């Protein structure tokens, strides 16, 4: 029995339609993203359901999930915060911003807060270097030109 919700399946089918009929496999990245949106992370059983829906061997799905950085292969906090620390961002205060973020959350990179609210990750280039420092919430919401004040407001908003 599939662990994918009917809504997820509907969204995955919309993605499948973008590719030639014999190339369902092309939708695997979107399908994994949709599955992750449904569940927060990607347990093996959920990936197996994706594989089944796309008529792929489970390993073909798992190797994609483990190759791309934005898939969560283990449980995350309710909000996954990713910060870019690459050179252009570092030149514009990302280091200082990260330090203050770690202090406020009381965790380091690749850790989850005790209350399960936040995970912190160090990201690679987001392609938004002009907006540094940049923070990504749950992969999909980008916050630009971050400051202490904006961070405080954001953390408060996310917690509520």
């Amino acid at each position, binding site marked *: 029995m599939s662990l994918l919700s009917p809504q997820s399946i509907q969204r995955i089918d919309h993605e499948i339609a*973008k*590719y*030639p009929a014999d*190339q369902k*496999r*092309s*939708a*695997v*990245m*979107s399908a*994994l*993203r949709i599955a992750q949106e449904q569940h927060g992370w990607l347990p093996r059983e959920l990936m197996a359901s994706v594989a089944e829906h*796309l008529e*792929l061997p489970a390993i*073909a799905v798992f*190797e*994609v999930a483990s*190759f*791309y*950085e*934005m*898939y969560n292969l283990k449980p995350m906090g309710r909000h996954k915060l990713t910060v870019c*620390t*690459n*050179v*252009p961002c*570092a*030149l*514009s205060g990302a*280091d200082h911003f990260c330090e203050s973020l770690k202090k406020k959350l009381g965790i380091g990179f690749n850790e989850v807060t005790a209350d399960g609210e936040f995970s912190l990750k160090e*990201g*690679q*280039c*987001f*392609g*938004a*270097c*002009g*907006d*540094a420092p940049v923070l*990504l919430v749950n*992969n*999909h*919401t*980008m916050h630009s030109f971050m400051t202490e004040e904006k961070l405080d407001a954001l953390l408060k908003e996310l917690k509520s």
Partner: protein
Amino acid sequence: MTQVIMGGCDGENTWRLKDYVARGGYEALRKVLSGMTPDQVITEVKTSALRGRGGAGFPTGLKWTFMPKNYVGDKYVVCNSDEGEPGTFKDRDILRYNPHALIEGMIIAAFAMGATRGYNYIHGEIWSVYERCEEAIEEARSAGFLGNNILGSSFSFNLYNHHGYGAYICGEETALLESIEGKKGQPRYKPPFPATYGLYGKPTTINNTETFASVPWIIQHGGQAFLEIGRPNNGGSKMFSVSGHVNKPGNYEVPMGTPFATLLEMAGGMRDGRAIKAVIPGGSSMPVLPGHIMMQTDMDYDSIAKAGSMLGSGAVIVMDDTTCMVGMLERLAWFYHEESCGQCTPCREGTGWLYRIIHRIEHGQGRMEDLDLLLSLSDNIQGRTICALGDAAAMPVRSFVNHFRAEFEHHITHKRCLVGSAHSEKAA
């Protein structure tokens, strides 16, 4: 000043079809479909001297001629919007503020090469931009610019967005194709090149977002007019992403051949009025140049090559005199190590080695012989891998060590930083 890409893009809804049409959008497509032949389109693009804006600078018109003409079956055009080269953020703005220029450019390119389907591969971390592009394609489809018998002609073309999910390597064109096919993004051996064996094994041409987005203007105004904006062999205007120690980081579209000093001034000059130390003129993979050399250099492919670096994607990373070059190189080395796909031994092992050596120099554990070891390692990576990621990891190392060797030596002998910024006195 003529702006090919972002001209007229002021205001809230410049990304909407209605706005785009009001400023002359899709007129180029009408012109093409009302009488131009595919060869005539390619000739215009060749005349324009448009060169690939993704980093390689390959002549676009010439690339388009590599597609087989009499192929029976599907042919593809693919847009590389997987913009993740540190320092580069121009394609994001094109997709955010002028996505129909890209869509129109791709339709015209598809017509010129006889392609039936296209994909726009969008960088993973810019989700809201992907959503906007989904809407833009829907707008174009509803208006009859995409689909069967476009504008009543016999030409049909369908276009879709594909969303990435975090892998720098997918900016390499064959890794990008693997990724669209639903696989790990590991680059393919070349040859065969994508024009013969591309997406799903079919003839495919991949161009960067800015390259496609330049095409409507070229068709509308002529290749010669585009060429004349820039310099011979360096046609057109170009978007430069300026980041780092400047007052106004952002994208600036200027004619090819604009002096770097002018670009720096447009970006508000140096932050806090400090002295310029170094510039990476074309994205993190390109050799760094000392600031005084850049101040004498113009922003076009040939001028920057003459100065000892490459224009790349047009990402200009500016560093002032407080910057620790060892610390910056350590970050870059870590990035390439993290992003190596692991397929080729020199890159997989070599990038890790580079990182560990630079890390120990930065943290006061370096040895003088490490500097030559770094250069020798770089020599053994560059040119010995399937794709250019190995080169991209090696080129910054060589240029940082060569131009700023004294700073590396100071780190090794004094076990601390020369510039006395936040990077100084690091513990191991």
